[in-house]
């Protein structure tokens, strides 16, 4: 029942779909037989990124892959371009890291295997949903994948079962559902107006106008709510603060970004010229940067700092909208690269940071910043990981954050949009403030020695690897960016 449009690409398409859907059975297997060591998890998951790498290499040769599934008269479109491929690779790496980390985490927090087993199918669902979002090329698939992702994410958030987690999860659930209804309303308007759901067709058919504008506004509102962009971020921090570390890491790194990705796809196709609205989105992003940074700076608990930092960092992505709207091709190319580099760098670094923070909290047994005193001596590796991840968040060289900031600044200056320069400066300074507030607490030497329970070494190592990957992406940015440039803007 599958009908790829171009049968000559069937091998790649088959491989792609296998790798997209493989996490589902893997999750189910893990549910039935929960893994106890990291190695099997890594081995089971390792083929996926390799496959994606292979696909990327094919893409570099053949250009994009695309096709459609026919489902009872319904055509579901998909395409794999460089951006989607790179995001897929990023997703798979992060999922793999989180899965391996989760094994260690379960042991460290001493949760019964049975209570933890629910994590695995949800993880599989999340992986499949994310993969679908990257490759989906019509609104229906996107809707289904978005909802699958949201529900899996909510489910994972609820796993700890504490009152705090349940309250936060409940709020997340309600807002996620309402957000998707807003999105659905926008889709309804688009469908009503243009009679089709596939992105390419919509981009070709849709003309800017009142209906498209309102539809985009509704869509955007729903997606912004799901992406936790200021001022709709209220649900994010409590959720992160109470969830298990691998879940927070995945959520902060990928889940919120997926909504942003969809918004960016639609915006670029449907209303690329809406200047004022794009500036409003940029303004919201700026406020997110400032507000998130401020809150992270004043937060009193480690995981809250990290969660607020996510709110702030998401704001950087929003700056892409004004920089892409109605600017010259040079600016647009710069902003386009900056955005995805920032997204990737932040995803890696944020996951690493959550893991490092989780390790610190686990080892110390306390989550307040003041209780971290002296950890630099007892937990050097975790702290180092935290620091390296923070380098990316602060946008200091040689990290992906730095390169992305360089591109953003370059785009902003080239376009003459000076407000974003000011915002970037302020955001960076706030980031520095909150990061070093944590490090400063950890470097205190004259605190009394406390009982430290070291976490399994693998957990630190995974976090370190992710942090280093974010760092390496800074100077090695040319490879993905060249692929992106070849793919071009939508």
């Amino acid at each position, binding site marked *: 029942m599958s009908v790829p449009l171009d049968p000559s690409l069937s091998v790649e398409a088959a491989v792609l779909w296998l790798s997209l859907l493989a996490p589902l059975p893997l999750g189910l297997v893990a549910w039935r037989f929960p893994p106890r060591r990291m190695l099997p998890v890594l081995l089971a998951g390792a083929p996926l990124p390799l496959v994606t790498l292979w696909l990327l290499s094919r893409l570099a040769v053949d250009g994009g892959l695309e096709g459609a599934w026919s489902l009872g008269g319904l055509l579901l479109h998909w395409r794999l371009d460089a951006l989607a491929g790179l995001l897929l690779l990023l997703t798979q790496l992060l999922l793999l890291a989180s899965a391996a980390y989760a094994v260690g985490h379960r042991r460290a927090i001493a949760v019964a295997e049975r209570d933890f087993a629910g994590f695995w199918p949800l993880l599989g669902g999340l992986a499949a949903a994310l993969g679908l979002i990257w490759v989906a090329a019509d609104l229906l698939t996107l809707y289904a994948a978005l909802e699958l992702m949201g529900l899996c994410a909510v489910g994972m958030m609820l796993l700890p079962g504490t009152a705090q987690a349940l309250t936060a999860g409940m709020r997340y659930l*309600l807002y996620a559902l309402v957000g998707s*209804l807003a999105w659905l309303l926008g889709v*309804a308007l688009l*469908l009503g107006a243009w009679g089709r759901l596939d992105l390419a067709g919509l981009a070709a058919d849709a003309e800017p106008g009142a209906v498209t504008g309102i539809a985009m506004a509704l869509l955007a509102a729903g997606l912004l709510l799901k992406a936790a962009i200021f001022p709709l971020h209220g649900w994010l921090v409590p959720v992160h603060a109470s969830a298990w570390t691998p879940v927070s890491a995945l959520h902060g790194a990928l889940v919120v970004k997926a909504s942003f990705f969809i918004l960016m796809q639609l915006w670029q196709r449907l209303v690329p010229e809406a200047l004022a609205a794009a500036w409003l989105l940029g303004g919201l992003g700026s406020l997110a940067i400032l507000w998130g940074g401020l809150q992270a700076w004043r937060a009193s608990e480690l995981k809250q700092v990290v969660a607020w930092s996510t709110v702030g960092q998401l704001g950087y992505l929003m700056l892409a909208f004004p920089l892409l709207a109605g600017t010259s091709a040079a600016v647009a190319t710069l902003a386009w690269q900056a955005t995805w580099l920032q997204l990737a760098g932040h995803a890696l670094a944020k996951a690493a940071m959550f893991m490092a923070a989780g390790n610190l909290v686990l080892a110390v047994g306390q989550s307040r910043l003041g209780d971290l005193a002296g950890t630099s001596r007892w937990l050097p590796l975790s702290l180092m990981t935290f620091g390296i991840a923070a380098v990316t968040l602060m946008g200091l060289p040689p990290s992906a954050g730095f390169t992305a900031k360089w591109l953003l600044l370059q785009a902003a200056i080239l376009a003459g949009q000076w407000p974003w320069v000011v915002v970037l400066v302020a955001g960076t300074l706030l980031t520095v403030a909150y990061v070093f507030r944590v490090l400063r607490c950890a470097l205190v030497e004259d605190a009394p020695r406390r009982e430290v329970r070291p976490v399994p070494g693998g957990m630190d190592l995974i976090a370190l690897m992710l942090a280093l990957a974010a760092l390496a992406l800074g100077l090695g940015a040319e490879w993905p960016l060249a692929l992106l440039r070849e793919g071009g803007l939508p």
Partner: protein
Amino acid sequence: MSLSGELVPAALLVILAAACLLDRHLRRACLVFIAFALLMALAWWRLGAPWLALVEAVLGALLTGTALFHGLGHLGARSPLPLRDHARRPRHQATARWLAALAWLALAAAAVWGLLGGGELSVPSEVMRRPLLATGLAIMALGLWAFAHHLHLLRRLLAFNVLGSGVFLLLAGLAGPTVEVQGLILVGLVVALVGSVLGAALLRRLHALDGRVSLGGGAGDDR
């Protein structure tokens, strides 16, 4: 079908939705919701989407209703929730919510009007869809208002379901019962069901853990 033949169920739908959302007696509200869902199934049937009607009846009415009653604690549970919702919002907050819902309604209405008036509707507009659209708009606005206004989690779940139904009606009204629309609604219904089930279960757990039925004000919620 005649216009008046459409108007009656449409008005009934709006009335049921309003009754479900405004009633502070929770069990009655749930019952009204089940009636509302059944009427929705009828509407789908009449629109020519029998499968959708079936799914709505099973998922929307039966399963969601069961979930809601479970959340209420009336299905073999030990500690049922209080039957009435006494929580009230402060007046100024209530006004803001009314205004917000109206703005949303205006926005959606403007878009619908633009589609109808400009003849931009991809499917040739039929007279019979107008009440459907109006009903959808009204139900959606009601649902959104209720979602923003109510504090009780069960009522917010109800509101979310009503809101969803409103959006489905609009969807069907705008694009007709095409296969895409049916697909979207199907997904929406499944999501709504899962959301309701999850929400109801959560509500039970929360109530069992520290006796609360709303989000705000609990321990550990706000810093």
